[in-house]
């Protein structure tokens, strides 16, 4: 570790001297993994800057968990490179394990033990001294609002409490790189918001976080950068703003009394907005340069004397991004019927 720190310091110096950017905290290229018939990953590429939050967004069966399991040394990829803090996960997994924390998709805690015992067990297994472990457990129980339940068996915990304990367990050894696989799935809106706050607090001190989610809003709220993953490949990546910009457009939705009005309006504005289309009595016009085109559209409709029933201006959501990129909505069930069923049952420690 000492050597490694020197290496980091060296890179840091290099970066300041030459103005080079620092190496990514997580680096993945060309990652593939196959489970029998299922190609879970077919060439995943990612780069996560140190101290940032990276959101891996994708529907059921996209390959999020598989990517996380490779990066956390639980499974070996078939091909490709995965590095955490510059260390190759297949060549030196033991060193990678010293720097990572994982809260998997399914809470990996011991149901029989108490909350405190669970944290202390992880502390011992990460080779910290007893006094450090005891203090750290107290601190984390307090921070995650579990002090009152610290000495109760996990059987008495609610789903939200169990999630928080699982997250706490991933932090016992203060890992500089953290992986959270769908941290808020199954939580009610309030617990989700609470957990978001805790995650924000966590990363405020420089932890690098890779987070997977099926919730567009979650990626938007928490992540600095987002990769959209579908069927084992990253199909887009960037900041939330970049992804939205890539999709272009603010969408102008103008509704009319009937479909005839909408058709007439479409004919009128076709030259101004070529991408416009009708949907029943509604005209949808994507506008790429904001106000200017929007005004033109409205003027043309007004000049044609058409009766406008309603007008909405919609900024693109990540849902639109997903729909445009994949042709299906993110929260739809995975269209491949037999794949999506395998994932939940197989994920925790199934055959690899």
């Amino acid at each position, binding site marked *: *570790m000492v050597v490694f720190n020197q290496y980091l310091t060296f890179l*840091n110096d290099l970066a300041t001297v030459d103005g080079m950017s620092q190496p990514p905290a997580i680096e993945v290229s060309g990652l593939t993994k196959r489970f029998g018939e299922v190609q879970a990953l077919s060439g995943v590429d990612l780069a996560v800057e140190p*101290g940032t939050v990276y959101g891996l967004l994708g529907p059921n069966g996209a390959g999020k968990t598989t990517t996380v399991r490779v990066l956390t040394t639980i499974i070996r990829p078939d091909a490709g490179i995965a590095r955490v803090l510059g260390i190759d996960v297949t060549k030196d997994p033991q060193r990678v394990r*010293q720097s990572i924390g994982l809260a998997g998709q399914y809470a990996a805690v011991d149901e029989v033990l108490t909350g405190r015992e669970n944290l202390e*067990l992880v502390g*011992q297994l*990460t080779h910290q001294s007893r006094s450090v472990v005891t203090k750290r457990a107290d601190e984390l129980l307090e921070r995650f609002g579990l002090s009152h339940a610290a000495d109760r068996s996990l059987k008495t915990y609610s789903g939200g409490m169990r999630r928080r304990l699982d997250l706490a367990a991933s932090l016992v050894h203060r890992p500089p790189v953290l992986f959270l696989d769908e941290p808020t799935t199954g939580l009610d809106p309030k617990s989700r918001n609470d957990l978001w706050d805790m995650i924000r607090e966590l990363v*405020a001190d420089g932890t690098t976080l890779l987070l997977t989610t099926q919730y567009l809003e979650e990626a938007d709220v928490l992540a600095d950068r987002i990769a959209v993953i579908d069927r084992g490949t990253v199909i887009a990546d960037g900041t939330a703003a970049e992804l939205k910009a890539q999709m272009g457009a603010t969408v102008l939705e103008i509704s009319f009394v009937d479909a005839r009005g909408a058709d007439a309006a479409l004919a009128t504005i076709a030259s101004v907005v070529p991408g416009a289309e009708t949907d029943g009595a509604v005209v949808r016009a994507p506008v790429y340069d904001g106000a200017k085109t929007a005004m033109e559209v409205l003027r043309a409709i007004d000049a044609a004397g058409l009766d406008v029933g309603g007008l909405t201006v919609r900024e693109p959501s990540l849902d639109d991004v997903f729909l445009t990129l994949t042709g299906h909505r993110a929260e739809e069930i995975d269209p491949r019927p037999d794949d999506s069923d395998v994932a939940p049952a197989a994920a*925790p420690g199934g*055959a690899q």
Partner: protein
Amino acid sequence: MTAPEASIAVTVPRTAAASPSIEATGSKLSWAVKDTLALAKRNLLHYTRVPQLLVFTFIQPIMFVLLFRYVFGGSIAVPGGYVNYLMPGIFGQTVVFGATSTAIGLAEDLGGGIIERFRSLPMVRMSVLAGRTGADVVRNTGVVIVMFIVGFAVGFRPHGGVPRIVLGAALVLAFAFALSWVMALVGLKVANGEAAQAVAFPLMFPLTFASSVFVRVDTMPGWLQGFAAHQPVTVVVNAARGLMLGPEASAQLRAVGTFTTSTTSYVLQSVAWIAAILAIFVPLAVRQFNKS
């Protein structure tokens, strides 16, 4: 979020803060021991907190003692009295049945996701298996002590002397440890608690009942004697019996044909069985664990 430029400066001290504790506590061997102890403690806590496990561990063998001592025992004639013959058998039967809990415990861990976390921690992986089989040695020791007391209460009076009685118990426990590794392999293969039980039981049943545990092998039909007299449970139980009951009783048992060889030979055969089982199944279980 922290600006990317600032973060290396933040990351380095954080890593540095984590590493001393990881480095300070020493070599790989001492980690292996510490991890094994931590996990053994966790597994033992399960035995004390899950009522079904407690019943399975302690109540079931007591019921076997009562059943054979008072219900069936009257019709089984053995030189030296049936209760003395029975108790070393009970020790053997208890640890053989108990070994299935190694399979069930490991399988449940594998199915339950906590192994996922273990695999992402810098712990020594082998300690998951060692912590499980180690905890089972501690549990078996406790069970044998309790069964000894129960036996004493129902009239068990071994005359082998303390050192030989302890040696006999140690042999049974060592055999149980070896069986734990067989069962560890079963648990790792099936990775499901109920399936583990389903696989383990048909293995354990003939080993326990087609043996010298409860009855005299020399009263069985000839075709069965061939198996029953030489299979490891009989060998180990007879070794413990010979040691615990003392030379006089063993000579009597040999005279009527219940023992087919001397106690010393049973002891040596037991040691050979234990060594062979360990030599085969420890590597197999470790390989299976690394694979899954």
